[in-house]
């Protein structure tokens, strides 16, 4: 057993206090306390977020924007207040730049189906990175196939970071769009998005950032990054499922054609034509996900109270602790930068003898939830030379104790699986 001292709290907030806010963390799994380390897939929800949903449905459930009655006005105010919170959270200049979507994937598809169809011409290049989630890869494959555009990739270096030595031959005057993941969901790698956005700007290209993993875990400032588009999901940042965000720079958004059409997004409709509503409603056809938008607002309140700088510091400390602890595990390869300054709270690993799915089952039996598989990054898995990895991902409520339990759990699983005489 390790002799490292167990600290009650890391970072700048008290993790044990944070844990009390998350009802699910007190449950048992297979008779063991839940150790939830699948936060890159989805986060757990604090009581304040759960209560915001109950409160909406019990007190002011109503459709937004069209009603003159009290409930409708209250619902509209609450949803628009949430939009303002999102804008403030990512330092957007105006809430009109915030479009509700279902999730990151839908946000990226919205840009692919509107802006890209209009702007990508035959021979234009779309630059991505080698570590994209399928959601920031497949939409662009389709755009390229339909427009005659060409996909190019910033490669992954040996050190788990992007290899930018040839960046000037990849981001060129032919580049029309740079769309890149901010933090890799498979490796934790934090890409230098501000630097890369500046490269793209210099050649006149537009910039999209997949913030699914970064917005929940790092301070993100769209004005500072100078991106045209930022996509992220509510459910990975303590909010409900089914609500996501597309940020679009105001002057870009004003010139974009609508994606879906129908109610809410129109100003005036006759039998043969319609004019478009103001921003951002122009991009929100049909009744929006009112309850979950309000829930996302409550999640942002919670994160703001912790402070995103503190969230990042807590996770960097935990990642450093975990990287250190993993060195004790024999025959376990850890992928990614292996540097808490250059990665988020994600430890992606592989054992030469025990397949990730077996390891995942063996950890689950000990109450430890991790994700196993290709993490929707199949091209990256091929680059790494594995079919799948086991991934532990941290958030605000995870502790060094839990990292110890993970390491002990992996050791126990390896003993169980590789010891041929376990029941002899």
């Amino acid at each position: 057993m390790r002799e490292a001292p167990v600290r009650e709290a890391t970072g700048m907030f008290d993790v044990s206090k944070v844990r009390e806010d998350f009802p699910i963390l007190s449950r048992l799994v297979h008779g063991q306390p839940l150790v939830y380390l699948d936060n890159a897939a989805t986060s757990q929800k604090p009581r304040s977020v759960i209560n915001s949903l109950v409160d909406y449905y019990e007190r002011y459930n109503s459709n937004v924007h069209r009603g003159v009655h009290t409930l409708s006005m209250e619902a509209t105010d609450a949803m628009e207040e949430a939009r303002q919170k999102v804008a403030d959270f990512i330092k957007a200049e105006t809430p009109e730049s915030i479009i509700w979507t279902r999730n990151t994937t839908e946000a990226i598809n919205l840009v692919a189906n509107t802006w890209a169809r209009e702007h990508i011409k035959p021979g234009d290049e779309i630059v991505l990175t080698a570590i994209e989630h399928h959601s920031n890869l497949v939409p662009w494959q389709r755009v390229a196939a339909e427009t005659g555009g060409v996909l190019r990739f910033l490669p992954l270096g040996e050190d788990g970071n992007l290899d930018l030595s040839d960046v000037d031959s990849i981001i060129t005057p032919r580049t029309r769009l740079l769309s890149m993941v901010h933090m890799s969901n498979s490796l934790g790698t934090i890409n230098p998005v501000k630097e890369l956005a500046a490269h793209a700007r210099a050649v006149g290209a537009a910039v999209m950032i997949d913030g699914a993993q970064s917005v929940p875990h790092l301070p993100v400032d769209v004005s500072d990054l100078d991106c045209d588009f930022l996509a992220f999901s509510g459910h990975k940042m303590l909010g409900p499922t089914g609500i996501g965000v597309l940020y679009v720079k105001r002057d870009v958004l004003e010139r974009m054609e609508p994606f879906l059409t129908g109610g809410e997004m129109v100003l005036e409709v006759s039998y043969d034509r319609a004019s478009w509503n103001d921003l951002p409603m122009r991009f929100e056809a049909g009744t929006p996900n009112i309850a979950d938008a309000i829930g996302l607002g409550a999640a942002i309140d919670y994160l703001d109270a912790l402070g995103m700088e503190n969230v990042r510091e807590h996770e960097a400390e935990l990642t450093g602790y975990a990287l250190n602890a993993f060195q004790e595990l024999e025959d376990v390869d850890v992928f990614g930068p292996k540097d808490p300054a250059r990665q988020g709270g994600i430890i992606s690993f592989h054992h030469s003898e025990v397949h990730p799915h077996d390891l995942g089952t063996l950890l689950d039996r000990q109450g430890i939830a991790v994700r196993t598989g290709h993490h929707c990054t199949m091209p990256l898995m091929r680059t790494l030379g594995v079919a799948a990895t086991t991934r532990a991902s941290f958030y605000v409520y995870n502790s060094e104790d839990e990292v110890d339990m993970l390491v002990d759990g992996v050791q126990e699983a390896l003993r169980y699986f590789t010891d041929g005489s376990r029941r002899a």
Partner: protein
Amino acid sequence: MALEGLDELYRDAILEHSRSPLNHEPLANPHITADGVNPFCGDEVHLQILLDENGRVARVGLQVEGCSINRATGSMLSAAILGKSLEEIDGLAAAFNEMMKDGVEAVRDRADLSELTALSGVRAFPVRIKCALLSWSTLDDGIREYRGD
């Protein structure tokens, strides 16, 4: 210890086959060949079969990239189909599927399942059942293609 409950899933026969899979060498010029992939987890199966003059399985090559359940199933399957006609394999596959659906009691009369009955424990772990079915669906694809279905 917490892992005792897993002994039903990871029976000794499964771990042994998983560590040392049978018939894993690729075969050249096979009569039947098929590749299977599970898109949810990335597991892959590659299958080659050589038939004898009577249409029975003479040799099998089966390569699995995947978890222990998948590897063990592939290994047991490769041994179970040796010497069988394609019609007999159809019956065996149906019996295996029935066992995974209804339990080992439902296939008590199928002696030819032999070691494959060790996989009935996977039923208690629903998310892992697909691991035990990939080799079988790949085999089915290969036989269908061979028959020109």
